């Protein structure tokens, strides 16, 4: 992974007494203290991060956290007070007006919260705006705009006006306008926040689908952690202009950096984020090629359980044996477990979200077996572990 976008010591202070405010930042004062003593508002304070080529990087925070200021500094809609922004290693903050226009025209495109479509232009003209600005001739730009509209699933609206479209469709146009430009970086400012929940989910899916083929570098602003966890390859959480934590969704969930992040993730619908692999525990099992009924019985007694998973020497999953059946085998002095193995055990892949299997987990008596694509038994899912994970308790990590 190479860094497409690097941000170094980026700071934005709004107000007059900027030098004084910068001193206070260095002295480690908070946003509220600086506002009180210098009368300046800290938008972003000494931000450092990198966005890798082809990843979706979500900047998360509540209103006033500086996330909108951050994304606008990346294309210099807001001039940074100090610090550097590097795209492909080239510093953006030192560019002159003409060079900046070129970067905006060719390197990055922005999608806006309230769509920001031009009401006086048709859908195709809106989509072609970036190309029109660059001086691409009409046939070519309409051709490209049309392709971009097809890509986001809008057919036959080319000559309508934005007001004739629903919110979800308008944002598709917003996205198409950004895609038509074919720039490597997409800046998405709360792009789906103005949409109703169903539309939002559709658009998130759409974005992920598109991303699979397009591999853009996407900086996505959101105040919705569920959204961030859903689409983000990595998430950066901001509070009062300061970066609190940067990490993968799982890192954020399992190792929150501080109380603030912890409070944030309290409300997360964990079922959407957690997968079978997150909640599975280490199973007790016997090797059918090696172990007989007595070993099986001993394992069950040791672990105080009434059924046991069975694998072969290659650790491939075979089935489950039940304590009463194993007892029977011992009484009959059998040496093999084969005759009592039940094979109708529910199985699932490790990356299945637990929302999909939750119903079944609660209705089947035998725990789910988690197996990989080579049929290896990785773990099992018991009801208690699922409930624990959803409520945010520590999950058995070595499972």
């Amino acid at each position, binding site marked *: 992974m190479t860094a497409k976008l690097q941000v170094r010591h980026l700071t934005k202070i709004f107000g007059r007494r900027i030098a004084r405010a910068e001193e206070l930042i260095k002295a480690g004062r908070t946003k509220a203290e600086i506002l009180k003593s210098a009368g300046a508002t800290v938008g972003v304070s000494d931000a450092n991060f990198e966005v890798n080529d082809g990843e979706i990087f979500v900047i998360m925070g509540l209103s006033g956290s500086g996330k909108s200021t951050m994304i*606008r500094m990346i*294309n210099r*809609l807001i001039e940074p007070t100090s610090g550097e922004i590097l795209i492909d290693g080239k510093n953006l903050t030192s560019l002159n007006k003409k060079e900046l*226009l*070129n*970067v*905006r*025209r*060719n390197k*990055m*495109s*922005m999608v*806006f*919260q*309230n769509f*920001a*479509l*031009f*009401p*006086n232009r048709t859908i195709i003209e809106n989509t072609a*705006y*970036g190309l*029109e*600005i*660059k001086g691409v001739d009409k046939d070519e730009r309409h051709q490209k705009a049309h392709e971009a509209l097809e890509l986001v699933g809008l057919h036959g609206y080319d000559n309508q*006006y934005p*007001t*004739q479209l629903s919110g979800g469709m308008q944002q598709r146009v917003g996205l198409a*306008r950004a895609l038509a*430009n074919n720039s490597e970086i997409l*800046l998405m400012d709360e792009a789906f926040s103005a949409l109703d929940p169903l539309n939002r989910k559709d658009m998130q899916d759409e974005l992920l689908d598109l991303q699979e083929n397009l591999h853009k570098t996407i900086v996505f602003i959101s105040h919705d952690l569920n959204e961030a966890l859903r689409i983000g390859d990595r998430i950066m959480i901001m509070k009062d202009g300061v970066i609190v934590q940067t990490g993968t969704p799982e890192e954020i969930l399992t190792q929150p950096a501080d109380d603030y992040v912890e409070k944030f993730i309290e409300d997360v619908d964990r079922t959407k984020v957690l997968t079978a692999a997150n909640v599975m525990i280490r199973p007790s099992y016997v090797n059918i090629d090696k172990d007989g009924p007595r070993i099986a019985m001993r394992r069950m007694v040791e672990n105080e359980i009434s059924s046991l998973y069975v694998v072969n020497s290659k650790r491939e999953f075979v089935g489950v044996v039940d304590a009463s059946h194993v007892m029977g085998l011992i009484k009959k002095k059998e040496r093999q477990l084969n005759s009592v193995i039940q094979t109708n055990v529910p199985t699932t892949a490790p990356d299945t979200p637990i929302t999909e299997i939750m119903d079944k987990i609660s209705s089947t008596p035998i725990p789910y077996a988690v197996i990989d694509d080579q049929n290896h038994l990785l773990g099992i899912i018991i009801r208690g572990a699922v409930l624990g994970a959803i409520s945010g308790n520590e999950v058995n990590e070595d499972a």
Partner: protein
Amino acid sequence: MPNIPQLPVSSWIDKLVDWLASFEGFFNGVTNFIGGIINGFQWVFDLLPIWLFMILVVGGTYWLNRKTKHWGLIAFEIVGLLYIWNQGFWRDMTQTLTLVLTSSLIALVIGVPLGIWMGKSKVFETINKPVLDFMQTMPAFVYLIPAVAFFGIGMVPGVIASVIFAMPPTIRMTDLGIRQVPADLIEAADSYGSTSWQKLFKVQLPLAKSTLMAGVNQSMMLSLSMVVIASMIGAMGLGNKVYFAVGRNDAGGGFAAGLAIVILAIILDRITQAINRSKIPKS
């Protein structure tokens, strides 16, 4: 304030006017230029037969309102224009129309760029606002005096006085229209790398258009209100008829000509409003 001598404001302004009047060449140039526009309009109106003029006005109104079909307005136009013809005011009406169109055109050409500048520059807006207030509240008669000094008598000083009096709405509404463009659309235009000119012509002006046109409409109405005043310095037209009627205490003649002005005003107002009507469907 017995000890403070009266400020010689009037003599200062006289001196200023005298000094400005010394730029005779410049004012002659302006007079010739505006005179040219006036003659051009008048030439066209004199050339048009009355029936053709009426067909153009009625047909134009029908075409501009083709979706809504304002039959009442069309009937009013036919009756109104026939009345003007019948009263023998036709040439006066076209002269008044020339005065109004010329001053509106000049107000548009000067006012829109000034309005754009105001819309883009906070400093210029702050400076210009009191100037506009001055232009609008100073009694319009006062403009006539220096206008005569600079431009002689006739249509040209009338047009100049009308422009000064009528231009502020165009400037103000252009400024307002530019400022009303939503911030996220400006951001969108900027984020795709628009130059200032591209932003102006592709985003700001198109979106300010209806507000701007409302200003032009207002300017037109204001310049129409100047026609009687302008007739005092020799501008021809319906205003002249009213002015004469005042001098002869001729109530009937005054109202007959005044009614013609009202008819012209209503027709001009409705046509400019129809031009302004948005073609973009509402959601």
